[in-house]
């Protein structure tokens, strides 16, 4: 026995970071070129969105700084009236497309992250409750989930948008749009989290470590949070990643339907909505660059999610 112990001990206990690097996940990551490229793209995009105020040459959200006469400047060419030049051109309001993309991505990412977070919190909490408590709590939650599914996401979003417009004080409407988007996307997305968490909870609940925790007198809520939650997070993470891409796209779709981010503070989706109007008119850059950015962002997140799903599923290794 002692020899064996020695054997275990001789394997040094590395630091947290080193351990993470050494983990299966990290290993699988280092051997998946697609995942690495995607991660790099996401990282670059997220960073440049975060650092937009410092990177972007202009502040497109400051209406006072815009010169309408700069409108429709092609990429890299001087504007006919003002002679100013912009890397990726300008849009119909004379905004620098490059800066607007950076700032717009900030909004898209913020909406995406927050919406997924919201969906995740609601879904995980309800899923845990349904799975752990069972009985009528479960029935009620799962029926509510059914009802939620009955309302297609887009409709939910449109209706929520309507309500919010009705009840928010006008002075806050500008910011409201963002929060409404978050709420709308989040609310229509929680069901899948709830379902998955409920399923995983049912499995975990029957494991003996939960029994052991009950035995020593832990309260149900404490068990749910301290014991079960950490063990159901893997699938949640996978769904969250894929939902993030979906949420960003959903935001774009909603803005096409006219319920998206306000045009004065455009998100990527709003930019695409605006840009698609210029598809035939020759100002291709207004659509192309935001669309490519969205594609790169969503595709990379999706690819990462895909990889994560396979990597976290021990049965597929």
């Amino acid at each position, binding site marked *: 026995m002692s020899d064996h112990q020695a054997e275990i001990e001789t394997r040094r206990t590395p630091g947290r970071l080193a351990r993470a690097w050494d983990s299966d996940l990290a290993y699988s990551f280092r051997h998946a070129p697609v995942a690495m490229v995607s991660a790099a793209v996401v990282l670059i995009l997220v960073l440049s969105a975060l650092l937009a105020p410092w990177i972007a040459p202009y502040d497109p959200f400051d209406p006072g700084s815009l010169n309408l006469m700069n409108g429709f400047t092609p990429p890299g060419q001087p504007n006919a009236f003002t002679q100013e030049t912009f890397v990726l051109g300008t849009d119909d309001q004379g905004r620098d497309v490059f800066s607007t993309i950076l700032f717009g991505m900030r909004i898209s990412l913020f909406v995406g992250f927050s919406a997924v977070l919201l969906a995740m919190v609601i879904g995980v909490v309800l899923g845990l409750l349904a799975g752990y408590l069972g009985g009528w709590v479960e029935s009620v939650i799962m029926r509510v989930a059914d*009802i939620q*599914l009955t309302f297609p996401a887009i409709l939910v979003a449109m209706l929520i948008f309507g309500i919010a417009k009705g009840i928010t004080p006008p002075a806050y409407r500008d910011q409201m749009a963002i929060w409404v988007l978050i709420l709308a996307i989040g609310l229509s997305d929680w069901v899948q989290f709830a379902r998955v968490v409920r399923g995983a909870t049912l499995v975990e609940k029957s494991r003996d470590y939960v029994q052991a925790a009950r035995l020593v007198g832990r309260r149900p809520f404490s068990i749910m949070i301290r014991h079960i939650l950490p063990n159901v997070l893997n699938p949640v993470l996978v769904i969250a990643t894929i939902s993030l*891409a979906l949420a960003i*796209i959903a935001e774009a779709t909603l803005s096409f339907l006219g319920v998206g981010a306000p045009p004065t503070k455009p998100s990527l989706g709003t930019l695409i909505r605006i840009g698609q109007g210029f598809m035939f008119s020759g100002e291709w850059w207004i659509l192309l660059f935001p669309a490519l950015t969205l594609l790169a962002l969503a595709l990379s997140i999706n690819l990462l999610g895909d990889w994560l799903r396979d990597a976290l599923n021990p049965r597929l290794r």
Partner: protein
Amino acid sequence: MLAYIIRRVAQSILVLLVTGFVAFSMFSFVGDPVENMLGQERTQADVDRLREQLGLDQPFVVQYGKFLQQAAQGNFGLSYRQGRPVSDILAERLPATLELAAVSGLLALMGGIGFGIFTAIRRRGVGANVIMTLSLVGVSLPTFLIGILLIYVFSVELGWLPSFGRGDVVEIGGWTTGFLTASGLKALVLPAITLGLYQMTLIMRLVRTEMLEVLRMDYIRFARARGLRERAINFRHALKNTLVPVITITGLQLGSIIAFAIITETVFQWPGVGLLFINAIQFVDIPVMAAYLMMISVMFVGINLIVDLLYFAIDPRLRIDGKAGGH
């Protein structure tokens, strides 16, 4: 089985009631229909009179009650916008949406299952990886943009396919179909692809994941150990088991095709219920919005029911226990 159906129906009615209630509580926020219904020269008195006539001055609970009362008699009122019975309008528009949904659903199902199986069986193959990545491109752009791009390429630049509408339709006993004319079929192509692409990707990924799980099961190993052919193993043993979980989600996805049709129909000016709904929202055509939401609920619930019944058909374990599957 019977008990199960009764329970589902009871739930469905509840769902419908809640849907309707929620919808009604929201209508007042969509805007004021009266503004649209009266011309520029109307007076305030006209506005007040019309609002009263329409019952819009009542609290929404009362409006909802009235709606329910009428709906129970199969009367959804007149569209504010078109002045025609809502049920007629829906009946007229439904075939377009259903045909589009059916074709895209079929496309999504066949493509999804086919590619799903392929990518699962050839998990590490180049082809599978290419398909996986390409399919992700399809869901990484918003549907409306894909639609517009397709129009740009195939209608404007190449001129192969029509950019809008349903083409010529043939009416058969109150049902208009585009399946029987060449132009009707051509008109279906782009919208169906636009609408089906997203669902196809979802189904494909789902099938792949489930199939990979199933291929790891003992009974698959055992089937191999018995020397069955790969084809028999993949299709007879694995696929059938894969379908059991796939059916629920696919069912829901197919349901949401009708919801997503809103966007596709808007882009392609496809004369279905989705376009109707968008118009209704713009006009604040409350009777149409209410009826549409109810109809969507009924369809979802119906699809759910069918899905659950399919479960019974596929999985013998459920047939015996009679335990409700899925939820």
